[in-house]
């Protein structure tokens, strides 16, 4: 049996030592009528066969397309050292650091991750991770509610529609009011609100400054929650600089592959004075009796294993290994590298935007500045364009109507630093040259 080392002889010795005739005896606390007699599972196969079968399935996913698809998940460059270090088994086969003396690798790396996030966002404290950017929205909403004792949550139109959907699902059985507010003129609705949740850049790629929104929130006794795009903070004004109370994000852009939806990384950072109401694990620095620096989990009394039904969240397992990848990415890119990545993302997106604007029949929808993502309105349905362009080797973008976030002809296009000028030129040419469907000859 794979990964079960006990031999038949050893099994006999062990049974003798515990005075049982057979392993079956050890299951005699299960009522016989509840025992499973048969199930429909195939017999086990060798590693050779498993890998062959899964290689065949992997090949069916059209690998090797050039990616212009974003929508919260991005094709960024991941330095090889990220994989090399995060695949050290001392990291990935370790567990939650409940015995801190045997887990200083884990604990110090989480402390460094928390520090990197605080520096990236200009906030003061961060947690050790949440599941993803969408559940982070839910956690920020409940955190705001705990702090203000209010149950109204305002969602700005900039917010990712998938995350909004998730928020409604998670709060369906709570007495929360989730309100969609307009981009401007939402101030009256802040009255009695726990928080306003905004996203920058927006789901459609628009860049804004929410400093005034922060002031309005605070005047009404509400919190400002800013959902950010981590790589964009190589350049853009940070949630901290805007006056946010809680900063959240999907951390996938910091060294995680798209992986068909996960695992990803929920990022949360806040101000020191709010730390006790923040969910998730938190690591703090301390020392041992000999004065040696060490790190421990702290404020555990907020968490489920102590507080149970009064906990800040039910989170137990988080995305620790992904947080390590994010830390590695931020260290390898560093202060200058992250800025370069952000600049290249923006410049390359502007270049593509220019080419597409110049194509007859194609319109760029975004009115103001964008970071690395924008919406193009095509002469025909966006999902047809996606199908066509797949056959030419491009992931063209996200058809927005499918997410209820745009018109049928709207396509959300993203450009990262990985895209070469040649790829961008080829993509623009392919879009312009489509000759089936509603337009072209």
């Amino acid at each position, binding site marked *: 049996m794979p990964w079960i080392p006990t031999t038949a002889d050893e099994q006999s010795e062990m049974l003798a030592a515990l005075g049982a005739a057979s392993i079956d005896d050890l299951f005699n606390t299960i009522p016989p009528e509840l025992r499973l007699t048969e199930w429909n599972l195939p017999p086990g196969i060798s590693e050779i066969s498993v890998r062959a079968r899964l290689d065949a399935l992997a090949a069916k996913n059209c690998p090797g397309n050039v990616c212009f698809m974003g929508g919260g998940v991005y094709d960024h460059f991941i330095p090889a050292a990220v994989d090399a270090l995060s695949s050290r088994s001392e990291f990935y086969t370790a567990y939650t650091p409940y015995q801190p003396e*045997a887990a200083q690798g884990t604990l110090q790396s989480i402390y460094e991750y928390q520090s990197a996030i605080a520096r990236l966002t200009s906030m003061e404290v961060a947690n050790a991770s949440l599941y993803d950017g*969408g559940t982070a929205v839910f956690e920020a909403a409940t955190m705001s509610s705990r702090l203000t004792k209010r149950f109204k949550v305002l969602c700005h139109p900039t917010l990712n529609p998938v995350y909004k959907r998730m928020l409604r699902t998670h709060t369906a059985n709570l007495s929360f009011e989730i309100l969609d507010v307009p981009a401007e003129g939402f101030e009256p609705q802040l009255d009695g609100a726990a928080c306003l949740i905004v996203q920058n850049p927006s789901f459609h790629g628009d860049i804004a400054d929410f400093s005034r929104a922060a002031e309005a929130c605070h005047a009404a006794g509400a919190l400002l929650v800013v959902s950010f795009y981590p790589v964009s903070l190589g350049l853009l004004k940070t949630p901290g600089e805007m006056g946010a109370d809680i900063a959240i994000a999907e951390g996938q852009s910091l060294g995680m592959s798209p992986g068909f939806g996960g*695992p990803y990384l929920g990022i949360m950072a806040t101000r020191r004075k709010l730390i006790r109401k923040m969910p998730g694990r938190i690591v703090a620095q301390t020392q041992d009796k000999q004065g040696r620096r060490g790190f421990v989990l702290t404020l555990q009394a907020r968490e489920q294993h102590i507080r149970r039904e009064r906990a800040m969240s039910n989170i137990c397992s988080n995305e620790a290994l992904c947080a390590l990848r994010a830390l590695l990415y931020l260290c390898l890119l560093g202060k200058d590298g992250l800025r370069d990545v952000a600049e290249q993302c923006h410049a390359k997106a502007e270049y593509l935007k220019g080419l597409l604007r110049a194509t007859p029949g194609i319109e760029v929808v975004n009115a103001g500045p964008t970071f690395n993502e924008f919406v193009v309105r095509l002469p025909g349905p966006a999902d047809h364009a996606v199908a066509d362009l797949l056959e030419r080797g491009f992931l063209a973008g996200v058809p927005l109507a499918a997410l209820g976030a745009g018109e049928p002809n709207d396509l959300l296009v993203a450009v990262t630093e990985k895209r070469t000028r040649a790829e961008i030129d080829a993509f623009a040419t392919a879009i312009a040259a489509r000759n089936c469907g509603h337009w072209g000859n």
Partner: protein
Amino acid sequence: MELIFEKTRAGRRAVTLDALDVPDAPLPAQLLRREAAPLPEVSELDVVRHFTHLSQRNFGVDSHFYPLGSCTMKYNPKMAEAVAANAGFRDLHPHLSSSPAGYACCQGAFEVIYETERLLAEISGMRAVSLQPIAGAHGELTGVLLIAAYHRGKGNRKDTIIIPDSAHGTNPASAAIAGFKVVQVPSSPDGTIHLDSFRNVLNDSVAGVMLTCPNTHGLFEPEVRQIADLAHQADALLYYDGANLNAIIGQCRPADLGFDVMHFNLHKTFATPHGMGGPGSGPVGVGDKLAPYLPGPRVVKVDSANCSAGVPPANCGAGVPPANSGAGVSPANCGAGVPPANCGAGVSPANCGAGVSPAFYKLATPEKSIGRIAPFFGNFMIALRAYAYILALGGDGLREVSRHAVLNANYLLARLKAAYKPAFPSGSMHECVLTLSDFAAELDVHALDVAKALLDRGFHAPTIYFPLTVKESMMIEPTETESKQSLDAFAAAMLEIAELARQNPQALHEAPQHLPVGRLDEVKAARELNCAYI
């Protein structure tokens, strides 16, 4: 050890991009951050050395016996890592699944999702499974939300969930986060729940009951079927916390025990890596009552609905008169004389043709779905590893998993009984619980001290101080992947420590002595709250 930030030298960097080959594009100053993010300025070698040294300060399953009760720290097969390294999965963008236009490029991934859900359903006896929940606790929350939706659908007003006092903290936390009140049912001295205690707390306001089986005492709940029947009579649903599935996999199935809904912990039973605390994956399984409410969209299998016999792929492409194209028709699927209705976005020409009936996967959302609990399909790359594990073991192998998990735990208990007191006289399955309350009372040696002494001897300590129902508890789960030699070495260390507790308890109070740090001042940490180096 220094922090990586303390290794910064201005101007040092690890990664440089190629020069920008498109025009520069400055943004208005008021949208920009004042200064570049103060991230480390270090070389790649700095980073590699730093994190290599950090990793060497960790115990992991690959290097240490790790008998953490309730966590199932079994060996993580490297085969699963090899499968996950496949670019066809790793680089697959999830938004390809956001519209049917991309389904053709998701077929391999959809098949993994479909098959994993199907196999988990078979393993548990449940009717359907969703891989969306991102961790076990997230699965619990999903399960409770499903229960809430069921009752809303029936117009019931039930606001309470019953949970045993021995339950993992995530159970009451999840129930509360989902908007329910929690009522505890006490365990009896023998460590199980008795029907009378349960009857005392069951009433019309109870929406659900959360149990695990075997429970956190390691004991099978003998009256589980009767509890299920009582609950169902009161129209309360029964939730199974799958954390201890390793004990019963292949021996009995949660659905057969009467459970209506459950979660699996892929990072426990199905050997995906623990990753210092995550990522995990907590798929949820349901019976008939809750199947219509599952999160969506879900992968469904379609047979040959989009193909039509007799379409030669060679008729597509340049030169095709527009009359044979149509709304929704991709040029590759057009064909002279082919009515547009038989082509469609997502139909690959390879799937058309005389007599061809391919399995084709697409997405559909259950009629009463509670909505989305994850942005896409949950932690797909974790489910992928679990799928590989299930394929490798097969039905016969999974049965052996529980047999050896239970054998190993009972063998270890037999070796330890000489010096340590079991919390319960009999019935331990895949984990055994000791109580060190006598050590504490007589020798002032606590479970914590024994745990620290084990670290010094090269073993990760078992779980201590959980479950809360046992004083000075130590919960030991060896798993089936440990050899007899490994168990004997651990038992020997535990016996030596018991001896030392009598001879020289102070030595135990000072443990660990052989690790990079000794016991850390948690009070100082909580008072100062230095949580970031900024």
